[in-house]
């Protein structure tokens, strides 16, 4: 493998563009910094390695190879030149409801594959949904992933990038499920339709405020025992938006698209749609059909 150009640097890794010499295939090399973490190999690197080794799916980034070189761990990943955040932000790019449907279908297939392998992603957001040269959406960055917890296990609620964080996480839940990934997917869908972030909280506290102002404050009636969360008592109570308000907010959305979004943004995680319900929803059965990924500009 060659490393030709540095394209990114994160807390625990540097990413290079390169080529697999034997085939000429373009690849990305994620070089894990080992000096930064006093406890040996970084947890994010361990998670990326652990879960990408198990997942082979068209809509999940492919781990081509792994090797150690000069005491650095190198993940060789498939080359994915773009991502949904870039597409949303670049106003010169016009995309259609059929394009959005195609992106949602591919994203949910990737998420479904993780969930049926009992893996939570826990950081779904537009810039972790990469786009391959032939237009395929690929779920990437498994640095926060983990297997579904054993029943008595306690999980940290400090996961998922704030704007895409499910309400149960905002309340500090410790026994959450794959429903947190579905919430993130719902917020991404809203953002694709609006082309601006849907729930952009400035702080974790503000995120609660922004979320409930937009979607209504949950009550024990629609979310049993939500009042159990300590953070619940200080909440401002907002009414849920009427269907008419939602129509006005998402002017281009069909009724099924609104149902689809509301299914994913259901407050009560027990009632929130799972990946199968999303994939089997009427939204994907009605016109327009999802665009062919390779034709999306």
């Amino acid at each position: 493998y060659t490393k030709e150009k540095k394209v990114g640097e994160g807390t625990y890794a540097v990413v290079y563009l390169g080529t697999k010499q034997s085939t000429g295939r373009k690849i990305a090399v994620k070089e894990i910094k080992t000096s930064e973490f006093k406890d040996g190999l970084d947890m994010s690197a361990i998670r990326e390695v652990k879960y990408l080794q198990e997942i082979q799916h068209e809509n999940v980034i492919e781990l081509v190879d792994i090797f150690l070189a000069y005491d650095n761990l190198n993940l060789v990943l498939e080359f994915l030149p773009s991502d949904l955040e870039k597409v949303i932000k670049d106003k010169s790019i016009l995309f259609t409801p059929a394009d959005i449907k195609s992106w949602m279908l591919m994203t949910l297939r990737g998420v479904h594959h993780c969930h049926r392998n009992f893996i939570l992603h826990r950081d779904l957001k537009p810039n972790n949904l990469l786009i391959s040269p032939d237009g395929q959406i690929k779920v990437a960055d498994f640095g926060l992933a983990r297997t579904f917890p054993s029943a008595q296990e306690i999980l940290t609620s400090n996961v998922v990038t704030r704007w895409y964080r499910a309400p149960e996480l905002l309340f500090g839940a410790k026994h959450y499920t794959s429903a947190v990934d579905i919430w993130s997917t719902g917020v991404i869908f809203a953002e694709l339709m609006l082309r601006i972030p849907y729930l952009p909280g400035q702080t974790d506290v503000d995120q609660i405020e922004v979320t409930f102002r937009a979607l209504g404050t949950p009550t024990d009636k629609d979310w049993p025992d939500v009042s159990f969360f300590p953070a619940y008592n200080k909440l401002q109570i907002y009414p849920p938006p009427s269907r008419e308000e939602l129509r006005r907010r998402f002017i281009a959305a069909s009724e099924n698209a609104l149902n689809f979004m509301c299914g994913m943004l259901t407050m009560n995680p027990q009632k929130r749609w799972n990946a199968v319900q999303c994939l089997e929803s009427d939204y994907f059965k009605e016109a327009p059909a999802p665009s062919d990924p390779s034709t999306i500009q």
Partner: protein
Amino acid sequence: FRHSSQYRFWSFTPEQLEQKRIRVNAQAVQSIEEDLRNFVADNKTDLNEEEIKTIEMKAVPVTAEEELKLINLYAKKVQMIAQRLNLPTEIVATSITFFRRFYLENSVHKFEPKAIVLTTIFLACKSDNYFIGIDSFCEKTRGSKEQILKYEFPLLESLKFSLFNHHPYRPLHGFFLDIQAVLHGKVDLNYMGHIYDRCKKRITEALLTDAVYFYSPPQITLSVLMIEDEALTTRYLELKFHGNNPDSSADAEETISQDNSVNISLEKLVTLIRDCKRIIEESPSTSVDEAKSIAARLYFCQNPKDL
């Protein structure tokens, strides 16, 4: 399961496994013997006849079989230390798994088992979301931070970076549920609870045997269930395959799933379970004296000067 790295990288036939161990041992012995020859040659002038004879007598590389005895002894130590740290069952299992796999790729001539034990437990904790910082880990285990971290990369590489394990405990829970459905009303739940606990312990013992390389986790679980209660397990499988019409022929290719896409024959499964059961019950044990003499030879192979 067949998509898992556990199946793709770590499942073998008994012959393949034996060949692997022999190959790893042979490579190490070859280089050790070369080192010893060079040592004697380099120190010709200093060494007298008797000393050379002593080296030839005591610095004798160990065989693949002797390696396995030492590895089995230390695998039990991994289990003991991990349990003493009160780690969850699954993490004890992952520690044992990492340790035993490491020595499918490396010889004890190259990596002294004692040096690897703590690193396997440390990496298992990290890998299974039970992170313990290195300082507190060293405090609990009185290990050396440098040594534990030094072996993390070699361990990860020898594991072929496959960290995700399917242990037989969840299948045990799954069969615990399915037995209740298939034998509904015919099993005493308290009794099932005792069986469950005994099976959990027996599964951890099974992970110390080569059954983990020859059988899938659910097959190991069924073998352990067969050990703990043969009648219950046989009854469950019969009903599972033949429903309530016992007269259907036992050897017919029976389907276990509704859509007839998967044919598993009860007879074939039971045979497989019994073979697995035998391996689990043979669980290897190494006497401390034997281990000491193997370890001594290893030490002298590494340090002929001390001889």
